[in-house]
């Protein structure tokens, strides 16, 4: 091995892998003359530091994201919590909606109407698996309403569907419609104008 390593300078420089010639010397002279760093100056600094900056930015984004996520999960972030609370208020659960409907029946003056709604509610809304809140901002005669829709799985109305529009604040049933598979109306109910008007006035 010693034999091979003899005259290593001659052997390695023979490969011309790297050189220091007049071009490099001139660059040194020019740099010193201009009192500036070697070639490319600013560009070189950017090239050297850009990967580090990029990594810091990515790390910052990741840490911020993780922090934000943790804050939301732990409920530390008050604004988000409030938003969530508001959202919960705006979107009542089916149980809450059912309770509201039941309570609103007392405000219906007409006994006939009240019984019709009670029968509908008890027949089709007690099983929460059979219906869902379809639209929290449905339009009902130019008023905001909650639209709930479901299916009827038993009795005469088997394989039929229903839709019910509710007053958002009170849960008062404004109208419901039962349709068969062909979408023909089997039963329809509309709350009297007076009761609806009274409900809107109370708001």
């Amino acid at each position: 091995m010693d034999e091979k390593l003899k005259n290593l300078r001659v052997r390695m420089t023979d490969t011309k892998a790297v050189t220091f010639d007049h071009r490099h010397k001139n660059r040194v002279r020019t740099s010193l003359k201009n009192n500036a760093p070697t070639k490319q100056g600013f560009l070189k600094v950017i090239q050297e530091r850009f990967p580090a900056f990029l990594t810091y930015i990515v790390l910052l984004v990741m840490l911020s994201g993780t922090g934000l996520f943790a804050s939301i999960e732990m409920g530390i972030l008050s604004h988000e919590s409030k938003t969530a609370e508001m959202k919960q208020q705006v979107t009542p659960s089916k149980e809450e909606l059912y309770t509201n409907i039941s309570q609103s029946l007392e405000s219906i003056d007409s006994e006939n109407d009240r019984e019709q709604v009670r029968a509908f509610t008890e027949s089709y809304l007690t099983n929460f698996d059979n219906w869902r809140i379809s639209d929290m901002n449905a339009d009902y005669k130019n008023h905001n309403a909650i639209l709930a829709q479901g299916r009827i799985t038993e009795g005469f109305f088997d394989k039929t569907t229903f839709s019910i529009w509710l007053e958002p604040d009170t849960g008062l049933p404004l109208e419901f419609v039962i349709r068969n598979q062909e979408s023909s109306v089997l039963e329809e109910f509309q709350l009297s104008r007076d009761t609806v008007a009274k409900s809107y006035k109370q708001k």
Partner: protein
Amino acid sequence: MGKREFTAHTDIDLTNKDAVLETIMGEYGESVVWLAYSYLKDKAKAEDIAQEVFIICYTKLDSFNNEASLKSWVLTITANKCKDVLKSWSHRNIVFAQSLLSTFKHQDSSPDFQLVGLEENQELTKNILKLPIKYREVIFLHYFEDLKVQEISDFLSIKENSVKTRLRRARILLKEMY
């Protein structure tokens, strides 16, 4: 050559900085760029480092201790500069990215050498550059710069026995490559 050049330079007027610069670039330019290349294994970086080293030498010539060898001073600056680069975050990041890239491309992660000259010399150069850095530097200083064990010991601030051990192991490793 090594012994002579590693002794103090008495025939240079250190007050004439431009003259010193021309002298050291002419006499040690090759040594500096090759030392940098042996550390970094990157032609462009080695050439950049060499230029930076001579700028540092020019600007810090006042701090040069005249009792030491000018060549030793220049090479020490080069070695320190290269070690700084190797330790730098950006360099390690680039090396990591390159090795990752080569893994995806199923290529050898060793640098892409563009060598000319005798095939035997090319192979020797490649093999030396494949050595771990602590073996590579002693081989380079001993066989390329013709430094004696004691000089290498002073240069690297390690014990002479460590230099001898590293040289022996480096030769064994090189032999195994053939």
